């Protein structure tokens, strides 16, 4: 086993230790059954594993490699190794930090709003009478079923100063009138971007939270009720602590998703008025400007940010991904 350096070996080692831990026997003397199970596991997961390597690990490594070069697609002869210079340029540029700040802002605001709204929706779905439950879930899930670009366009045209109806429908709200151009300043642009993002992905969070709610034993709630706990106390002391794992998983998934926001910004403002986000910056640099080196450096930094979020969530907040499968 020690001579095998391939990923296949690593996977095998993992399955072996897992089997060993379960059986409690030293790893050398595995039973035929354990070995057969390991082989079956490998056959089942192997193809997907290799496919993942091909479509994720390879492009990531290629991006890391490209990020060390000055390389413009339309000037192939000028390609030169520049070491970490691209990272120095990116990290010393206010454009990058501004984009990071906006990305973090959008992530934090959308995730917070979505968790609150999503939890409310999950409660509604959970408590709804049986006959309504199916219909309710479908209705709540509709926004999530819409392609992001389509929803971005819908929201854009809703708020657009020429074709939008929001200005006339909501003219009774102070500050909103026919002359309000939502996509002409940072605050209003971000509001529409965030609102559209919240509308679109709250159903996702509420579904994850609904699964969490379903795991909370009814007995516990009943017992608390018998003891005279109010609705709020039951929610706070019984329901929420019991579904903490589900909440954290929902927050982690959504945070990773929100951090990579692209479609809404691309369609609505294309980064105008200080609404540029990291994904858009990476896109504009590597696809728009064809600067493969600089663009790859931004992509790698974006990737590191995503890893950091995962690390913080899993290590510090102790998100247990297995809990979503009901193994806990």
């Amino acid at each position: 086993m020690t001579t095998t350096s391939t990923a296949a070996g690593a996977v095998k080692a993992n399955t072996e230790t897992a089997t060993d831990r379960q059986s409690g026997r030293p790893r050398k003397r595995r039973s035929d059954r354990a070995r057969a199970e390991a082989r079956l596991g490998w056959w089942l997961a192997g193809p997907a594993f290799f496919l993942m390597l091909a479509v994720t690990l390879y492009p990531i490594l290629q991006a890391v490699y490209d990020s060390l070069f000055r390389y413009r697609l339309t000037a192939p002869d000028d390609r030169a190794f520049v070491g970490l210079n691209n990272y120095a340029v990116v990290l010393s540029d206010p454009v990058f930090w501004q984009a990071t700040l906006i990305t973090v802002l959008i992530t934090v605001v959308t995730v917070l709003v979505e968790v609150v709204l999503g939890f409310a929706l999950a409660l509604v779905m959970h408590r709804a009478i049986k006959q309504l439950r199916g219909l309710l879930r479908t209705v709540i899930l509709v926004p999530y079923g819409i392609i992001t670009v389509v929803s971005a366009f819908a929201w854009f045209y809703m708020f657009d100063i020429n074709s939008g109806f929001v200005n006339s429908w909501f003219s009774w709200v102070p500050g909103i009138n026919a002359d309000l151009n939502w996509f002409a300043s940072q605050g209003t642009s971000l509001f529409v971007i965030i609102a559209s993002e919240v509308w679109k992905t709250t159903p996702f969070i509420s579904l994850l939270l609904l699964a969490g709610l379903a795991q909370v034993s009814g007995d516990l709630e009943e017992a608390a009720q018998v003891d005279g706990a109010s609705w709020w106390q039951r929610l706070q002391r019984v329901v929420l602590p019991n579904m903490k794992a589900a909440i954290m998983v929902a927050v982690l998934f959504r945070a990773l998703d929100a951090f990579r926001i692209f479609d809404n910004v691309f369609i609505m403002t294309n980064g105008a008025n200080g609404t540029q986000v990291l994904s858009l910056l990476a896109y504009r640099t590597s696809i728009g400007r064809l600067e493969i080196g600089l663009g790859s450096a931004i992509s790698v930094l974006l990737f590191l940010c995503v890893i950091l979020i995962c690390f913080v969530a899993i290590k510090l907040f102790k998100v247990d991904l297995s809990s979503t499968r009901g193994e806990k």
Partner: protein
Amino acid sequence: MGKRSRWIAATLAVVLGGSLAACGSATGPPVLTWFINPDAGGQAVIAEDCTAKSGGAYRIDVSTLPRDASSQREQLARRLAANDSGIDLMSLDPPFIAELAEPGFLAPVPADVAERVSQNVVKGALAGATWRDELVAVPFWANTQLLWYRKSVAEKAGLDMSKPVTWDQLIDVARTSNVDLAVQGAKAESLTVWINALIESAGGQIITDQGVRASEVKLGLTSPAGEEAAKIIGTIGKEGLGGPGLPTADENASLTLFQSDSGSFMVNWPFVWSAMNAAVEAGTLDASFLKDVGWTMYPRTSADKPSAPPYGGINLGVGAFSKNVDLAYQAAECIVTPEHQAEYFVTNGNPASNTTAYDDPAVQKAFPMATLIRDSLQASAPRPQTPYYNEVSLGLQETWHPPSAVDPATTPQVATDLITAVLAGDRLL
């Protein structure tokens, strides 16, 4: 396991090989693939016509590119950088021609073809198809912006539209008559078009020295012409003379504003004429509106200098990696005949680059302003020609937007600093 993986590999090879083989052409004349920008179907008609006229020498298949010019460029540049031999003909937006010509992505135009396709072509279109003093693309259709106006508004303001008008005059009318100027202030390519036209009309240039490397490009923004341009855009932005929609107004939004109650003057491409006629036919625009619409030459930046209107359009490039370069040039020559250009002008509303096409009675009937378009094209100036056009244009959009923040004292310098640093590879965009 070894046996099985070999089996899987063999299956994959069969599946992939089979699907790739399906992409190859069937028997028959060589197929030329023409990557076109989306239009009203005119290029496809011309392709069919040329296929029929070639007498079996070639067949032209059209393949549609994305809707906006920058996405078209992205796709073509990426394909050409990968030496894609599947690109025979391309409909190219002029500003991006230098970028594709510089690394040799375009097949050189044979001398005899160059001579034939340059005859009777308007100056702006020739300049837009030329890079480093050589014709690198075949001029197809050419676009230019006119000043469209509401006769009633001009009359009320006492503006004599038979004489050339200046931006200052338009600004005065907008101030006093409480109407909106329809200009393109969105953070998009249309903003660069506006900036370039203002600077060129004042006798300046955005790029004064091409240089050999990106870091050697010299900009002419910090000149009296650049400051004058910044003054005009800044005034319209700060005083709200372009309406509340100005910071997000593209060409279509400008047309909507022009048709609204506060509409007055508009700088825009001739497609607006087709669009307004179509709107009248569809019943969404009052027929009397058309009678109130007038047109004249693009406004002057300074009263004593003729204006240099924007130039756009499409030129045909032949892919350097095409297997049928000669046939592709034959096809290109067929596509750009004055007859095809006239037909395309009438049916799709895209003006011809060949002056003889304007003599066609059908053109004169569909576009009463055809002669003005031709004159405007002769006077037009292309946007800065450089392989780094995208950086220059994005840098301008980054610094000259929103229009209300444009200040003649600082904006040209800030733009110069940003674009220079970006071209040197020291800053992001």
